[in-house]
Protein backbone atom coordinates (compact mmCIF):
# COMPACT_ATOMS: atom_id res chain seq x y z
CA UNK A 1 0.00 0.00 0.00
CA UNK A 2 2.23 2.75 -1.27
CA UNK A 3 0.05 5.71 -0.28
CA UNK A 4 0.15 4.92 3.44
CA UNK A 5 3.58 3.51 4.31
CA UNK A 6 3.02 4.15 8.05
CA UNK A 7 -0.18 2.16 8.28
CA UNK A 8 0.68 -0.89 10.39
CA UNK A 9 -2.32 -3.10 11.10
CA UNK A 10 -0.49 -5.18 13.71
CA UNK A 11 0.34 -2.07 15.76
CA UNK A 12 -3.16 -0.56 15.43
CA UNK A 13 -4.69 -3.89 16.51
CA UNK A 14 -2.73 -3.63 19.78
CA UNK A 15 -4.10 -0.13 20.36
CA UNK A 16 -7.62 -1.47 19.70
CA UNK A 17 -7.20 -4.44 22.09
CA UNK A 18 -8.12 -6.74 19.23
CA UNK A 19 -6.05 -9.84 18.55
CA UNK A 20 -5.76 -10.56 14.83
CA UNK A 21 -4.46 -13.72 13.20
CA UNK A 22 -1.54 -13.34 10.75
CA UNK A 23 -3.97 -13.99 7.89
CA UNK A 24 -6.39 -11.28 9.09
CA UNK A 25 -3.52 -8.85 9.58
CA UNK A 26 -2.28 -9.35 6.02
CA UNK A 27 -5.78 -9.15 4.53
CA UNK A 28 -6.73 -5.97 6.42
CA UNK A 29 -3.35 -4.42 5.57
CA UNK A 30 -4.17 -4.85 1.89
CA UNK A 31 -7.90 -4.00 1.99
CA UNK A 32 -7.67 -1.00 4.31
CA UNK A 33 -4.62 0.21 2.41
CA UNK A 34 -6.93 0.57 -0.59
CA UNK A 35 -9.55 2.36 1.49
CA UNK A 36 -6.91 4.79 2.82
CA UNK A 37 -5.64 5.39 -0.71
CA UNK A 38 -9.20 6.29 -1.66
CA UNK A 39 -9.35 8.60 1.40
CA UNK A 40 -6.13 10.32 0.35
CA UNK A 41 -8.05 12.33 -2.21
CA UNK A 42 -9.33 14.44 0.69
CA UNK A 43 -5.80 15.83 0.96
CA UNK A 44 -6.34 17.69 -2.31
CA UNK A 45 -9.19 19.77 -0.87
CA UNK A 46 -8.38 23.20 0.52
CA UNK A 47 -9.85 23.25 4.02
CA UNK A 48 -7.79 26.08 5.50
CA UNK A 49 -10.78 28.38 5.92
CA UNK A 50 -13.21 25.67 7.02
CA UNK A 51 -14.23 25.05 10.60
CA UNK A 52 -14.69 21.37 11.43
CA UNK A 53 -18.26 20.37 12.11
CA UNK A 54 -18.78 17.95 14.95
CA UNK A 55 -22.52 17.84 14.39
CA UNK A 56 -24.37 18.38 11.19
CA UNK A 57 -26.90 20.76 12.66
CA UNK A 58 -26.59 23.23 15.56
CA UNK A 59 -26.90 21.30 18.80
CA UNK A 60 -27.53 22.67 22.25
CA UNK A 61 -27.56 20.98 25.58
CA UNK A 62 -30.85 19.47 26.54
CA UNK A 63 -31.55 19.74 30.24
CA UNK A 64 -33.94 17.84 32.42
CA UNK A 65 -34.92 18.19 36.05
CA UNK A 66 -32.43 16.48 38.32
CA UNK A 67 -34.94 14.12 39.86
CA UNK A 68 -34.43 10.49 40.77
CA UNK A 69 -36.12 8.07 38.35
CA UNK A 70 -36.75 4.37 38.45
CA UNK A 71 -33.74 2.57 36.95
CA UNK A 72 -31.94 -0.74 37.14
CA UNK A 73 -31.76 -2.75 40.28
CA UNK A 74 -28.36 -4.36 40.94
CA UNK A 75 -29.88 -7.62 39.77
CA UNK A 76 -30.96 -6.11 36.43
CA UNK A 77 -27.56 -4.51 35.95
CA UNK A 78 -25.97 -7.93 36.44
CA UNK A 79 -28.43 -9.91 34.32
CA UNK A 80 -26.14 -10.03 31.26
CA UNK A 81 -22.86 -10.44 33.13
CA UNK A 82 -20.69 -13.22 31.65
CA UNK A 83 -19.45 -14.09 35.15
CA UNK A 84 -20.91 -12.81 38.43
CA UNK A 85 -20.80 -13.68 42.11
CA UNK A 86 -22.18 -12.15 45.31
CA UNK A 87 -23.96 -9.38 43.39
CA UNK A 88 -20.73 -8.32 41.66
CA UNK A 89 -19.11 -8.62 38.23
CA UNK A 90 -16.24 -11.10 38.31
CA UNK A 91 -13.34 -9.82 36.21
CA UNK A 92 -10.05 -11.24 35.05
CA UNK A 93 -7.27 -10.69 37.58
CA UNK A 94 -5.65 -7.28 37.01
CA UNK A 95 -2.99 -7.25 39.80
CA UNK A 96 -0.20 -9.70 40.50
Amino acid at each position, binding site marked *: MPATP*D*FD*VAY*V*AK*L*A*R*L*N*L*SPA*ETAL*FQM*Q*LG*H*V*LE*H*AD*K*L*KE*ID*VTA*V*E*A*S*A*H*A*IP*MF*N*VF*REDEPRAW*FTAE*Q*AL*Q*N*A*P*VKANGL*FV*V*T*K*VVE
Partner: protein
Amino acid sequence: MKPADLPALNIADLQSLLRRREVSPREALEALRVRVAAIEPQIDAYLSLDTEDALKQAETADVRLPLGGVPIAIKDVISVAGQPCTCASRILRNYIAPYDATVITKLKAAGAIPFGKTNMDEFAMGSSTENSSVKLTRNPWDRTRVPGGSSGGSAAAVAADLAFGALGTDTGGSIRQPAALTGVVGLKPTYGRVSRFGLVAFASSLDQAGPLTKSVRDAALIMNAIAGPDPCDSTCFDRAAPDYTAALGKEIRGMRLGVPKEYMLEGIDPQVKSAVDAAVRQFESLGAEIVDVSLPHTDDAIAVYYIIATAEASANLARFDGVRYGYRAADAKSMLDHYGRTRAEGFGAEVKRRIILGTYVLSSGYYDAYYLRAQKVRELIRQDFAQAFAKVDALISPTSPVPAFRIGERTSDPLQMYLADIFTNAGNLAGICGLSLPCGFAQIGDAKLPIGLQLVGPALDEERILQLAYAYEQSTEWHKHRPPSLLGAATESVAA
Protein backbone atom coordinates in the same frame (compact mmCIF):
# COMPACT_ATOMS: atom_id res chain seq x y z
CA MET B 1 -61.14 -11.10 4.74
CA LYS B 2 -59.45 -14.49 5.08
CA PRO B 3 -56.76 -14.62 7.80
CA ALA B 4 -54.21 -15.67 5.16
CA ASP B 5 -54.76 -12.36 3.34
CA LEU B 6 -54.19 -10.15 6.38
CA PRO B 7 -50.35 -10.04 6.30
CA ALA B 8 -50.42 -8.45 2.83
CA LEU B 9 -52.17 -5.38 4.25
CA ASN B 10 -50.36 -2.15 4.89
CA ILE B 11 -50.64 -0.53 8.33
CA ALA B 12 -53.34 1.97 7.36
CA ASP B 13 -55.59 -0.73 5.86
CA LEU B 14 -55.03 -3.08 8.80
CA GLN B 15 -55.95 -0.22 11.12
CA SER B 16 -59.29 0.38 9.43
CA LEU B 17 -60.18 -3.31 9.82
CA LEU B 18 -59.10 -3.23 13.46
CA ARG B 19 -61.10 -0.09 14.18
CA ARG B 20 -64.20 -1.45 12.48
CA ARG B 21 -63.74 -4.54 14.70
CA GLU B 22 -63.70 -6.75 11.61
CA VAL B 23 -60.40 -8.16 12.80
CA SER B 24 -59.05 -8.28 16.33
CA PRO B 25 -55.41 -7.46 17.15
CA ARG B 26 -55.01 -11.08 18.21
CA GLU B 27 -56.29 -12.35 14.84
CA ALA B 28 -53.97 -10.00 12.97
CA LEU B 29 -50.97 -11.12 14.99
CA GLU B 30 -51.95 -14.78 14.68
CA ALA B 31 -52.27 -14.43 10.88
CA LEU B 32 -48.84 -12.84 10.75
CA ARG B 33 -47.36 -15.55 12.94
CA VAL B 34 -48.75 -18.25 10.64
CA ARG B 35 -47.33 -16.53 7.54
CA VAL B 36 -43.94 -16.10 9.22
CA ALA B 37 -43.92 -19.79 10.13
CA ALA B 38 -44.59 -20.71 6.48
CA ILE B 39 -42.40 -18.18 4.62
CA GLU B 40 -39.59 -17.23 6.97
CA PRO B 41 -37.43 -20.30 6.12
CA GLN B 42 -37.14 -18.95 2.56
CA ILE B 43 -36.26 -15.40 3.56
CA ASP B 44 -34.57 -15.57 6.98
CA ALA B 45 -35.55 -12.03 7.88
CA TYR B 46 -35.83 -12.59 11.64
CA LEU B 47 -33.34 -13.36 14.39
CA SER B 48 -35.93 -13.87 17.12
CA LEU B 49 -39.70 -13.84 17.64
CA ASP B 50 -41.37 -13.38 20.99
CA THR B 51 -44.83 -14.62 20.05
CA GLU B 52 -46.08 -15.23 23.57
CA ASP B 53 -45.35 -11.70 24.76
CA ALA B 54 -46.75 -10.16 21.58
CA LEU B 55 -50.00 -12.17 21.87
CA LYS B 56 -50.33 -10.95 25.45
CA GLN B 57 -50.03 -7.35 24.26
CA ALA B 58 -52.54 -8.03 21.48
CA GLU B 59 -55.13 -9.16 24.05
CA THR B 60 -55.14 -5.74 25.70
CA ALA B 61 -54.40 -3.55 22.65
CA ASP B 62 -56.49 -0.40 22.32
CA VAL B 63 -57.30 -0.05 18.61
CA ARG B 64 -58.28 3.62 19.04
CA LEU B 65 -54.63 4.53 19.61
CA PRO B 66 -52.64 5.80 16.58
CA LEU B 67 -51.03 2.38 15.96
CA GLY B 68 -53.35 0.38 18.23
CA GLY B 69 -52.86 -3.37 17.78
CA VAL B 70 -50.41 -3.08 14.87
CA PRO B 71 -47.41 -5.47 15.07
CA ILE B 72 -44.12 -3.80 14.10
CA ALA B 73 -40.85 -5.67 13.42
CA ILE B 74 -37.74 -4.22 15.05
CA LYS B 75 -34.15 -4.25 13.79
CA ASP B 76 -32.03 -6.17 16.27
CA VAL B 77 -29.93 -3.09 17.11
CA ILE B 78 -32.86 -1.52 19.02
CA SER B 79 -33.53 -2.54 22.63
CA VAL B 80 -36.89 -4.10 23.47
CA ALA B 81 -37.07 -4.94 27.18
CA GLY B 82 -36.86 -8.67 27.85
CA GLN B 83 -36.00 -9.57 24.26
CA PRO B 84 -32.63 -10.41 22.70
CA CYS B 85 -30.68 -7.52 21.20
CA THR B 86 -27.77 -9.21 19.46
CA CYS B 87 -26.90 -6.77 16.64
CA ALA B 88 -26.38 -10.03 14.71
CA SER B 89 -23.05 -10.33 16.53
CA ARG B 90 -21.50 -13.26 18.32
CA ILE B 91 -20.36 -10.88 21.05
CA LEU B 92 -24.02 -10.17 22.03
CA ARG B 93 -25.35 -13.65 21.25
CA ASN B 94 -26.90 -14.15 24.70
CA TYR B 95 -27.67 -10.53 25.51
CA ILE B 96 -31.20 -9.68 26.68
CA ALA B 97 -32.11 -5.98 26.61
CA PRO B 98 -32.93 -4.82 30.14
CA TYR B 99 -34.93 -1.77 29.00
CA ASP B 100 -36.92 -0.31 26.10
CA ALA B 101 -35.34 2.11 23.66
CA THR B 102 -37.26 5.39 23.56
CA VAL B 103 -38.56 4.54 20.07
CA ILE B 104 -40.01 1.33 21.55
CA THR B 105 -41.54 3.18 24.53
CA LYS B 106 -43.13 5.57 22.03
CA LEU B 107 -44.34 2.79 19.71
CA LYS B 108 -45.92 0.99 22.65
CA ALA B 109 -47.53 4.22 23.88
CA ALA B 110 -49.05 4.54 20.38
CA GLY B 111 -50.51 1.04 20.78
CA ALA B 112 -48.10 -0.82 18.49
CA ILE B 113 -46.86 -4.30 19.33
CA PRO B 114 -43.14 -4.91 18.77
CA PHE B 115 -43.02 -8.35 17.13
CA GLY B 116 -39.75 -9.92 16.08
CA LYS B 117 -36.15 -8.75 15.92
CA THR B 118 -34.82 -8.57 12.38
CA ASN B 119 -31.52 -9.64 10.87
CA MET B 120 -28.89 -7.06 9.95
CA ASP B 121 -25.25 -6.59 9.14
CA GLU B 122 -23.31 -7.05 12.39
CA PHE B 123 -23.54 -3.79 14.37
CA ALA B 124 -25.23 -2.24 11.29
CA MET B 125 -21.94 -2.31 9.38
CA GLY B 126 -22.66 -3.29 5.80
CA SER B 127 -24.88 -2.83 2.78
CA SER B 128 -26.10 -6.37 2.14
CA THR B 129 -26.87 -8.06 5.50
CA GLU B 130 -24.16 -10.57 4.56
CA ASN B 131 -22.15 -9.39 7.59
CA SER B 132 -24.68 -10.95 9.98
CA SER B 133 -22.90 -13.53 12.13
CA VAL B 134 -26.10 -15.58 12.25
CA LYS B 135 -27.48 -16.05 8.74
CA LEU B 136 -28.07 -14.62 5.29
CA THR B 137 -31.31 -12.82 4.57
CA ARG B 138 -32.62 -13.29 1.05
CA ASN B 139 -34.26 -10.74 -1.22
CA PRO B 140 -37.93 -11.75 -1.69
CA TRP B 141 -37.76 -10.63 -5.35
CA ASP B 142 -34.90 -13.01 -6.12
CA ARG B 143 -33.63 -15.24 -3.37
CA THR B 144 -30.16 -15.50 -4.93
CA ARG B 145 -29.72 -11.78 -4.22
CA VAL B 146 -29.13 -9.67 -1.12
CA PRO B 147 -31.89 -7.54 0.44
CA GLY B 148 -29.44 -4.66 0.93
CA GLY B 149 -28.35 -3.54 4.33
CA SER B 150 -27.76 -2.99 7.02
CA SER B 151 -31.53 -3.10 7.81
CA GLY B 152 -31.94 -6.00 5.35
CA GLY B 153 -34.05 -8.14 7.68
CA SER B 154 -36.54 -5.33 8.28
CA ALA B 155 -36.74 -4.55 4.55
CA ALA B 156 -37.14 -8.19 3.48
CA ALA B 157 -39.76 -8.79 6.18
CA VAL B 158 -41.88 -5.87 4.95
CA ALA B 159 -41.42 -6.80 1.27
CA ALA B 160 -42.37 -10.45 1.86
CA ASP B 161 -45.42 -9.56 3.99
CA LEU B 162 -43.70 -11.00 7.05
CA ALA B 163 -44.32 -7.67 8.80
CA PHE B 164 -46.87 -4.88 8.44
CA GLY B 165 -44.09 -2.36 8.99
CA ALA B 166 -40.67 -2.24 10.62
CA LEU B 167 -38.08 -0.07 12.28
CA GLY B 168 -34.56 0.13 10.93
CA THR B 169 -31.58 2.37 11.51
CA ASP B 170 -29.65 4.40 8.97
CA THR B 171 -26.04 5.50 9.49
CA GLY B 172 -25.00 5.75 5.83
CA GLY B 173 -28.05 4.50 3.96
CA SER B 174 -29.03 1.44 5.99
CA ILE B 175 -32.78 2.17 5.82
CA ARG B 176 -32.99 3.69 2.34
CA GLN B 177 -30.73 1.29 0.41
CA PRO B 178 -32.43 -1.96 1.58
CA ALA B 179 -35.82 -0.27 1.06
CA ALA B 180 -34.76 0.42 -2.55
CA LEU B 181 -33.44 -3.10 -3.14
CA THR B 182 -36.62 -4.75 -1.80
CA GLY B 183 -39.21 -2.33 -3.22
CA VAL B 184 -40.52 -0.78 0.01
CA VAL B 185 -40.61 2.73 1.50
CA GLY B 186 -37.81 3.72 3.88
CA LEU B 187 -37.33 7.03 5.69
CA LYS B 188 -34.18 8.28 7.39
CA PRO B 189 -35.27 11.16 9.58
CA THR B 190 -33.22 14.29 10.20
CA TYR B 191 -30.44 13.67 12.72
CA GLY B 192 -31.98 14.49 16.11
CA ARG B 193 -35.62 14.10 15.05
CA VAL B 194 -35.87 10.60 16.54
CA SER B 195 -34.27 9.56 19.83
CA ARG B 196 -31.24 7.28 19.75
CA PHE B 197 -31.63 6.20 23.38
CA GLY B 198 -31.60 2.41 23.49
CA LEU B 199 -30.06 1.95 20.04
CA VAL B 200 -26.73 0.15 20.16
CA ALA B 201 -24.43 2.91 18.91
CA PHE B 202 -22.43 2.50 15.70
CA ALA B 203 -21.58 6.10 14.69
CA SER B 204 -23.21 8.47 17.14
CA SER B 205 -23.19 11.59 14.95
CA LEU B 206 -24.80 9.72 12.03
CA ASP B 207 -27.19 7.06 13.42
CA GLN B 208 -30.96 7.58 13.12
CA ALA B 209 -33.87 5.18 13.50
CA GLY B 210 -36.76 5.29 11.05
CA PRO B 211 -39.57 3.31 9.40
CA LEU B 212 -39.60 0.72 6.59
CA THR B 213 -43.13 0.32 5.28
CA LYS B 214 -45.35 -0.76 2.40
CA SER B 215 -46.62 2.76 1.74
CA VAL B 216 -45.71 6.41 2.22
CA ARG B 217 -48.68 6.94 4.53
CA ASP B 218 -47.48 4.10 6.76
CA ALA B 219 -44.06 5.76 7.05
CA ALA B 220 -45.79 8.96 8.18
CA LEU B 221 -47.88 7.01 10.72
CA ILE B 222 -44.78 5.43 12.27
CA MET B 223 -42.98 8.78 12.28
CA ASN B 224 -45.93 10.28 14.18
CA ALA B 225 -45.32 7.69 16.87
CA ILE B 226 -41.52 7.77 17.15
CA ALA B 227 -40.44 11.37 16.42
CA GLY B 228 -40.10 13.99 19.11
CA PRO B 229 -38.09 15.07 22.13
CA ASP B 230 -36.46 12.70 24.60
CA PRO B 231 -34.88 13.74 27.89
CA CYS B 232 -32.66 10.63 27.64
CA ASP B 233 -30.93 11.80 24.40
CA SER B 234 -29.20 15.16 24.49
CA THR B 235 -28.85 15.16 20.68
CA CYS B 236 -32.61 14.86 20.22
CA PHE B 237 -34.50 18.02 19.17
CA ASP B 238 -36.50 19.44 22.04
CA ARG B 239 -39.35 20.62 19.81
CA ALA B 240 -42.49 18.53 19.30
CA ALA B 241 -42.87 16.75 15.96
CA PRO B 242 -45.65 17.74 13.52
CA ASP B 243 -48.40 15.46 12.20
CA TYR B 244 -46.59 13.83 9.29
CA THR B 245 -49.83 12.77 7.61
CA ALA B 246 -51.15 16.34 7.42
CA ALA B 247 -49.56 17.24 4.07
CA LEU B 248 -50.26 13.89 2.37
CA GLY B 249 -52.52 14.39 -0.62
CA LYS B 250 -51.84 18.11 -0.93
CA GLU B 251 -50.83 19.33 -4.36
CA ILE B 252 -47.15 19.58 -5.18
CA ARG B 253 -47.62 22.05 -8.04
CA GLY B 254 -44.93 24.71 -8.00
CA MET B 255 -42.59 22.80 -5.72
CA ARG B 256 -39.00 22.80 -6.88
CA LEU B 257 -37.05 19.56 -7.21
CA GLY B 258 -33.30 19.56 -7.72
CA VAL B 259 -31.48 16.94 -9.77
CA PRO B 260 -27.84 16.83 -8.59
CA LYS B 261 -25.77 16.58 -11.73
CA GLU B 262 -23.05 14.62 -9.90
CA TYR B 263 -25.54 11.83 -9.14
CA MET B 264 -26.44 10.93 -12.69
CA LEU B 265 -23.02 10.12 -14.09
CA GLU B 266 -21.02 6.98 -14.68
CA GLY B 267 -21.51 3.75 -12.75
CA ILE B 268 -25.30 3.93 -12.62
CA ASP B 269 -27.10 0.91 -14.00
CA PRO B 270 -28.86 2.07 -17.21
CA GLN B 271 -32.20 0.63 -16.06
CA VAL B 272 -31.89 2.53 -12.76
CA LYS B 273 -31.09 5.72 -14.64
CA SER B 274 -34.02 5.43 -17.00
CA ALA B 275 -36.44 4.65 -14.14
CA VAL B 276 -35.26 7.73 -12.23
CA ASP B 277 -35.42 9.87 -15.38
CA ALA B 278 -39.02 8.73 -15.85
CA ALA B 279 -39.79 9.58 -12.21
CA VAL B 280 -38.41 13.08 -12.75
CA ARG B 281 -40.76 13.49 -15.73
CA GLN B 282 -43.64 12.18 -13.62
CA PHE B 283 -42.97 14.85 -10.99
CA GLU B 284 -42.89 17.41 -13.78
CA SER B 285 -46.29 16.24 -14.98
CA LEU B 286 -47.58 16.66 -11.41
CA GLY B 287 -46.58 20.32 -11.60
CA ALA B 288 -43.18 20.26 -9.91
CA GLU B 289 -40.44 22.38 -11.37
CA ILE B 290 -37.20 20.52 -12.10
CA VAL B 291 -33.97 22.39 -11.47
CA ASP B 292 -30.37 21.29 -12.09
CA VAL B 293 -28.27 21.61 -8.97
CA SER B 294 -24.71 20.75 -8.04
CA LEU B 295 -23.27 19.02 -4.98
CA PRO B 296 -19.57 19.52 -5.78
CA HIS B 297 -18.22 17.35 -2.95
CA THR B 298 -20.25 14.25 -3.85
CA ASP B 299 -17.11 12.34 -4.80
CA ASP B 300 -15.56 12.97 -1.39
CA ALA B 301 -18.50 11.79 0.70
CA ILE B 302 -17.58 8.11 0.78
CA ALA B 303 -14.05 8.86 2.03
CA VAL B 304 -15.34 11.30 4.65
CA TYR B 305 -18.00 8.84 5.71
CA TYR B 306 -15.63 5.90 6.18
CA ILE B 307 -13.23 8.00 8.25
CA ILE B 308 -15.87 9.51 10.54
CA ALA B 309 -18.10 6.44 10.84
CA THR B 310 -15.20 4.09 11.62
CA ALA B 311 -13.63 6.56 14.08
CA GLU B 312 -16.90 6.78 16.00
CA ALA B 313 -17.41 3.02 15.76
CA SER B 314 -13.97 2.26 17.17
CA ALA B 315 -14.81 4.40 20.21
CA ASN B 316 -18.37 3.08 20.61
CA LEU B 317 -17.34 -0.56 20.29
CA ALA B 318 -14.68 -0.18 22.97
CA ARG B 319 -17.47 -0.98 25.43
CA PHE B 320 -17.53 -4.59 24.25
CA ASP B 321 -14.87 -5.83 26.63
CA GLY B 322 -16.47 -8.97 28.04
CA VAL B 323 -16.78 -7.54 31.55
CA ARG B 324 -20.37 -6.39 32.17
CA TYR B 325 -22.23 -8.10 29.34
CA GLY B 326 -21.68 -10.07 26.20
CA TYR B 327 -19.27 -12.81 25.22
CA ARG B 328 -16.10 -13.38 27.26
CA ALA B 329 -13.15 -15.49 26.08
CA ALA B 330 -12.42 -18.43 28.36
CA ASP B 331 -9.34 -18.81 30.58
CA ALA B 332 -7.78 -15.39 30.07
CA LYS B 333 -4.23 -15.18 31.42
CA SER B 334 -4.29 -11.41 31.90
CA MET B 335 -6.57 -8.46 31.31
CA LEU B 336 -4.94 -7.72 27.92
CA ASP B 337 -5.34 -11.35 26.94
CA HIS B 338 -8.99 -11.14 28.11
CA TYR B 339 -9.73 -8.02 25.97
CA GLY B 340 -7.76 -9.11 22.92
CA ARG B 341 -9.26 -12.59 22.69
CA THR B 342 -12.80 -11.62 23.74
CA ARG B 343 -12.94 -9.08 20.91
CA ALA B 344 -11.14 -11.34 18.42
CA GLU B 345 -13.59 -14.17 19.07
CA GLY B 346 -16.67 -11.95 19.46
CA PHE B 347 -16.48 -9.67 16.41
CA GLY B 348 -16.81 -10.59 12.73
CA ALA B 349 -14.46 -9.52 9.94
CA GLU B 350 -16.15 -6.29 8.85
CA VAL B 351 -16.46 -5.03 12.43
CA LYS B 352 -12.78 -5.77 13.01
CA ARG B 353 -11.85 -3.97 9.80
CA ARG B 354 -13.75 -0.87 10.84
CA ILE B 355 -12.35 -0.90 14.38
CA ILE B 356 -8.83 -1.03 12.89
CA LEU B 357 -9.50 1.78 10.41
CA GLY B 358 -11.23 3.93 13.05
CA THR B 359 -8.49 3.38 15.61
CA TYR B 360 -5.87 4.31 13.01
CA VAL B 361 -7.52 7.57 11.91
CA LEU B 362 -7.86 8.64 15.56
CA SER B 363 -4.34 7.59 16.56
CA SER B 364 -1.60 10.02 17.53
CA GLY B 365 0.03 11.56 14.47
CA TYR B 366 -2.85 10.74 12.07
CA TYR B 367 -5.79 12.48 13.75
CA ASP B 368 -5.27 15.79 11.91
CA ALA B 369 -4.51 14.19 8.56
CA TYR B 370 -7.61 12.00 8.52
CA TYR B 371 -10.23 12.66 11.18
CA LEU B 372 -9.95 16.45 11.50
CA ARG B 373 -9.68 16.87 7.73
CA ALA B 374 -12.72 14.64 7.22
CA GLN B 375 -14.73 16.71 9.71
CA LYS B 376 -13.83 19.83 7.70
CA VAL B 377 -14.84 18.28 4.39
CA ARG B 378 -18.02 17.17 6.13
CA GLU B 379 -18.75 20.85 6.71
CA LEU B 380 -18.22 21.50 2.97
CA ILE B 381 -20.67 18.69 2.17
CA ARG B 382 -23.19 20.25 4.54
CA GLN B 383 -22.72 23.61 2.80
CA ASP B 384 -23.28 21.95 -0.61
CA PHE B 385 -26.71 20.82 0.55
CA ALA B 386 -27.49 24.18 2.19
CA GLN B 387 -26.74 25.94 -1.11
CA ALA B 388 -28.88 23.47 -3.06
CA PHE B 389 -31.79 23.87 -0.64
CA ALA B 390 -31.65 27.63 -1.09
CA LYS B 391 -32.86 26.93 -4.65
CA VAL B 392 -35.05 23.83 -4.31
CA ASP B 393 -37.47 22.17 -1.89
CA ALA B 394 -36.00 18.69 -2.24
CA LEU B 395 -33.45 16.69 -4.22
CA ILE B 396 -34.28 13.69 -6.39
CA SER B 397 -31.86 10.89 -7.28
CA PRO B 398 -31.48 7.12 -7.39
CA THR B 399 -31.24 5.59 -3.90
CA SER B 400 -28.69 3.01 -5.03
CA PRO B 401 -26.71 3.03 -8.29
CA VAL B 402 -27.60 -0.63 -8.87
CA PRO B 403 -30.50 -2.99 -8.11
CA ALA B 404 -30.02 -5.90 -5.69
CA PHE B 405 -26.73 -7.67 -6.32
CA ARG B 406 -26.04 -11.36 -5.96
CA ILE B 407 -25.17 -12.92 -2.63
CA GLY B 408 -21.37 -13.09 -2.44
CA GLU B 409 -20.83 -10.75 -5.39
CA ARG B 410 -19.25 -7.90 -3.43
CA THR B 411 -17.98 -9.46 -0.22
CA SER B 412 -14.31 -9.76 -1.24
CA ASP B 413 -13.76 -6.06 -1.86
CA PRO B 414 -14.84 -3.77 1.01
CA LEU B 415 -14.32 -0.64 -1.08
CA GLN B 416 -16.80 -1.89 -3.72
CA MET B 417 -19.32 -2.59 -0.96
CA TYR B 418 -18.78 0.88 0.50
CA LEU B 419 -19.54 2.43 -2.89
CA ALA B 420 -23.06 0.94 -2.72
CA ASP B 421 -23.92 3.84 -0.40
CA ILE B 422 -22.67 6.61 -2.67
CA PHE B 423 -26.05 8.38 -2.96
CA THR B 424 -27.10 7.98 0.65
CA ASN B 425 -24.23 8.61 3.01
CA ALA B 426 -23.79 12.30 2.19
CA GLY B 427 -27.27 12.79 3.66
CA ASN B 428 -26.13 11.30 6.97
CA LEU B 429 -23.03 13.50 6.99
CA ALA B 430 -25.20 16.57 6.39
CA GLY B 431 -27.76 15.40 8.97
CA ILE B 432 -30.71 15.94 6.64
CA CYS B 433 -33.70 13.69 5.91
CA GLY B 434 -34.11 11.25 3.03
CA LEU B 435 -36.70 8.79 1.80
CA SER B 436 -36.62 5.93 -0.68
CA LEU B 437 -39.68 4.64 -2.51
CA PRO B 438 -40.23 2.27 -5.43
CA CYS B 439 -39.99 3.84 -8.91
CA GLY B 440 -39.79 0.88 -11.26
CA PHE B 441 -38.10 -2.43 -11.96
CA ALA B 442 -34.94 -3.65 -13.60
CA GLN B 443 -35.22 -6.83 -15.61
CA ILE B 444 -32.03 -8.85 -15.16
CA GLY B 445 -32.34 -12.31 -16.68
CA ASP B 446 -35.47 -13.82 -15.18
CA ALA B 447 -35.37 -11.53 -12.18
CA LYS B 448 -37.55 -8.47 -11.81
CA LEU B 449 -35.75 -6.26 -9.31
CA PRO B 450 -37.12 -3.12 -7.63
CA ILE B 451 -35.53 0.29 -8.23
CA GLY B 452 -35.58 2.95 -5.52
CA LEU B 453 -36.07 6.68 -5.92
CA GLN B 454 -34.53 8.91 -3.28
CA LEU B 455 -36.03 12.21 -2.14
CA VAL B 456 -33.79 14.26 0.13
CA GLY B 457 -35.02 17.27 2.08
CA PRO B 458 -33.49 19.88 4.36
CA ALA B 459 -33.27 19.31 8.12
CA LEU B 460 -36.68 18.80 9.76
CA ASP B 461 -38.54 18.82 6.42
CA GLU B 462 -39.79 15.23 6.58
CA GLU B 463 -43.33 16.53 5.97
CA ARG B 464 -42.31 17.88 2.58
CA ILE B 465 -40.55 14.77 1.30
CA LEU B 466 -43.44 12.62 2.54
CA GLN B 467 -45.86 14.90 0.66
CA LEU B 468 -43.79 14.62 -2.52
CA ALA B 469 -43.37 10.87 -2.14
CA TYR B 470 -47.11 10.41 -1.56
CA ALA B 471 -47.99 12.43 -4.66
CA TYR B 472 -45.64 10.29 -6.77
CA GLU B 473 -46.74 7.01 -5.20
CA GLN B 474 -50.44 7.73 -5.72
CA SER B 475 -49.90 8.75 -9.35
CA THR B 476 -47.99 5.54 -10.21
CA GLU B 477 -48.58 1.83 -9.79
CA TRP B 478 -45.18 0.72 -8.52
CA HIS B 479 -46.27 0.23 -4.91
CA LYS B 480 -48.89 -2.27 -6.03
CA HIS B 481 -46.30 -4.75 -7.33
CA ARG B 482 -45.54 -7.59 -4.94
CA PRO B 483 -42.69 -10.10 -4.99
CA PRO B 484 -43.35 -13.34 -6.90
CA SER B 485 -45.46 -15.63 -4.74
CA LEU B 486 -43.28 -17.45 -2.28
CA LEU B 487 -43.40 -21.20 -2.11
CA GLY B 488 -45.01 -22.76 0.92
CA ALA B 489 -47.54 -19.97 1.31
CA ALA B 490 -50.28 -22.54 1.15
CA THR B 491 -53.45 -20.97 2.46
CA GLU B 492 -54.62 -24.26 3.89
CA SER B 493 -51.83 -24.00 6.47
CA VAL B 494 -53.72 -21.03 7.88
CA ALA B 495 -56.18 -22.72 10.18
CA ALA B 496 -58.33 -20.18 11.94
